C-alpha cells in the first residue's frame, strides 16, 4: 500500500493524468457525437483552432478562463462546418471530418503565426489545497475539469430524459422521431457539443498544459481520441481508462528513459498506439456478442456509400 502512494507513484499518476487530459476531453465530446450517430474526424482540426484561439484570447485578456471559453467557442464554430456538410449537405462523414481537419490545421497555423514566442500566464498552482495538495499541485485546472466532466456526462447520458433522447437518435432516427424527438436537431447538437469539448481540449493544451502555441500543437491527439472512443465502447465512464491507455503509455515511455531502460526511444514511442490497438483486439471478442456496442446509426456511416 505504501508503494502505491510513494512520491514516485504519485508523480507518475499525475503525469498520466496530465498527458491524458486533452485526449480525454476529446474522447468525451466525440463519444457524445458518435452517440447521436455522427463520427467526426475533424476534432483534430478543431483542437488546433481551440488551441490558438484560447492562446490568443488569454494573451489579449490576461484571463486563462476567458481563453478556455474562447477556444471552446471557436472550435464549436468549426464543428458546425462538419454538421453542415454531413447533416445538411449529406456528405460522407469521414470525408467531411477530414475536410474540417485540414481546414482547422491550415487556419490555426495561418492565423497563429504572430503568437509564436508570446508569453501567457496560465492558471495558478493548486499545491496549497489541504490534504490533496501533494497530488493537486502536480495537476492543473483542466485535469480537474476533465475528471469532473466524465461522471457528469455519464450520468446525464444514462439517467436523464435528454440523455435517453440522444441515445435513441443514435440508435434509430425513425424510432426517435416516433418518440416525438427531432433527430436532426439532436444530431446537430451532438456535433456542436463534440466541437465544444474538442475546443476545450485544444485550449487546455495551449493555455493550461504547456502555456505555449506552436503550429500543429495537438500532434495527432485528436485523431487518436476518435479511435479511443471505440476502445471505450461509446461509454463516457470508460472514456477515462481509454484516455489513460494513451496518456499513461506516453508518460510511461518518457519516464522509462529516465530509469535508463535500454530500448530504442522510437520503439518505446509506439506504445501509445500499440496499447490501445491491443486493447481493441483483446476486448473485441466480448464486444462482438453485443453487436460491437456501436450505435446503430453509426453503422450506417461505415456501410454507406
Amino acid at each position, binding site marked *: 500500500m505504501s508503494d502505491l502512494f510513494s512520491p514516485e507513484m504519485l508523480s507518475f499518476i499525475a503525469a498520466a493524468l496530465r498527458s491524458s487530459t486533452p485526449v480525454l476531453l476529446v474522447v468525451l465530446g466525440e463519444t457524445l457525437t458518435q452517440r447521436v450517430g455522427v463520427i467526426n474526424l475533424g476534432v483534430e482540426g478543431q483542437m488546433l483552432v481551440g488551441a490558438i484561439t484560447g492562446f490568443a484570447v488569454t494573451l489579449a485578456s490576461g484571463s486563462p478562463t476567458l481563453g478556455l471559453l474562447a477556444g471552446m467557442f471557436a472550435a464549436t464554430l468549426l464543428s458546425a462546418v462538419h454538421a453542415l456538410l454531413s447533416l445538411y*449537405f449529406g456528405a460522407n462523414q469521414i470525408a467531411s471530418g477530414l475536410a474540417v481537419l485540414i481546414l482547422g490545421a491550415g487556419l490555426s497555423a495561418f492565423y497563429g503565426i504572430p503568437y509564436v514566442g508570446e508569453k501567457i500566464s496560465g492558471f495558478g498552482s493548486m499545491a496549497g489545497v489541504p490534504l490533496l495538495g501533494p497530488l493537486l499541485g502536480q495537476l492543473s485546472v483542466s485535469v480537474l475539469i476533465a475528471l469532473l466532466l466524465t461522471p457528469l456526462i455519464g450520468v446525464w447520458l444514462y439517467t436523464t430524459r435528454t440523455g435517453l433522447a440522444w441515445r435513441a437518435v443514435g440508435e434509430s432516427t425513425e424510432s426517435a422521431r416516433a418518440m416525438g424527438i427531432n433527430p436532426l436537431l439532436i444530431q446537430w447538437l451532438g456535433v456542436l457539443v463534440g466541437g465544444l469539448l474538442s475546443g476545450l481540449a485544444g485550449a487546455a493544451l495551449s493555455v493550461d498544459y504547456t502555456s505555449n502555441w506552436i503550429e500543429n500543437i495537438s500532434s*495527432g491527439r485528436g485523431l487518436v481520441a476518435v479511435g479511443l472512443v471505440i476502445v471505450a465502447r461509446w461509454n463516457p465512464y470508460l472514456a477515462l481508462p481509454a484516455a489513460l491507455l494513451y496518456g499513461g503509455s506516453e508518460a510511461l515511455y518518457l519516464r522509462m528513459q529516465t530509469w535508463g531502460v535500454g530500448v*530504442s526511444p522510437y520503439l518505446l514511442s509506439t506504445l501509445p498506439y500499440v496499447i490501445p490497438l491491443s486493447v481493441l483486439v483483446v476486448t473485441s471478442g466480448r464486444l462482438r456478442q453485443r453487436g460491437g456496442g456501436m450505435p446503430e446509426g453509426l453503422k450506417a456511416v461505415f456501410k454507406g456509400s
Partner: protein
Amino acid sequence: MKGLAAIVQHSSSRGALSALLFTLACLGFFWLNGHQPVALFREMVLGAFGDGYALSETLVKATPILFCALAVALPARLGLISVGGDGQLYFGALTGTAVILALGDLSAPVMLPLMLLGAAAGGALWGALAGALRARIEVNETISTLLLNYIAVLLVDYAVHGPWKDQSNLGWPATSPFPAGAILPTFFDTRVHLGLLLAVIAAVLLYIFASRSRWGLGLTLLRSNQRVGRGAGINYPLNVLLVMGIGGALAGLAGIAEASVIQGRLQGGLSAGYGISGFLVAWLAGQKFLLIIPLAVLMGGLQASADSLQLFAQMPSSSAVILQGILFAIVLAVGGRWRERMVP
C-alpha cells in the same frame, strides 16, 4: 436550392460548379490577404500546368497520391473505410528497403522487380493486418488503420536512426544511398518515374477487375448485403483480406518509389501527407478507379502549385492547406446527398 439541386444532377455540372466555387474562394482568399487575386491565381495555375517542367512536377506529386487513392477506393468497394494509406506507404518502403539492403548491388532488371515485390508485400501485410482484424474479430478498420499509420512511421524512424543508419553520412538518420540498380527509371529528363505508369496500370486493372469481373460483382453483392453474398458462396473474410491487402500493396509501391527515385535512400518524412490526399481524391472521385487518375493529377497540381503562393506572394505554407480544406468542403457540399432531398 431546388433549382441548384436540379442543376447538379449531372456529375459534369457538379464538377463545373465545384471548380467555379473553388476559383472564387481562392480569389477571395488572396484578396482578403492583400494580394492581387487574379495575378496570383494565374501564377498558381501556371505553377501546376504552365510548362513542361511544371507538368512533370505535378505528375511526380500525383503518383503517390494516385497509389494511395487506389488503396482507399478498393476497400471502399466492400464498404470498408481505410485511412491507412500513409502507414502502408511507410511499411512498404521499409520492406522494399529491406530487400535492397539484403540483395546489395544487383542489376536493375533483377533488383527492381524484387524491390517492388518486397514493398508490395510489406504494404499488403500492413493493410491485411487491419483487414484481418476486421474480418476475424470486427475491429473497426478506420481506427486500426489510423493507429497503424503512427506505428509504421515510427518503425521507419527506428530503422533509419538505428540498425540501418548510414555510418558514412555523418550520422544523419537515413540508410546508405540505394545502389544504381534499385533506382526506378525516370522519363524525358524529368523526375516522372515508372511508378506513375504502374499506378495508372493498377487503376485500369482495378477498373476492369472490380467493375467488370465476377469478383467485382461479388464485392458489390457482399457490400450491399453480406448475408446474400455469403449465401452465394462468396467468402467475406477472404475478400476483406484481399481488398485491404491489394490496396496496401499499392500504397507500399508508392512508398518504395518515393524512397528510390525521390530520396534515393530511405529516410523519415517520406510522405507529404499522401495518405490523406489519396483519401480525399478517392472520395472526390466517388471511388471510381478511372476518375481517380485525373483527380490525382489535379490534386498533385494543386499541391505543387502552392509553391507560387510562397514564391510570389510570400504567403505562409499553411495558406495552401487552407485552400485544400476549402476545396474539399466545396466538393463535399456540392456532391452530397442533399439533392436527393430536393429533387425526389
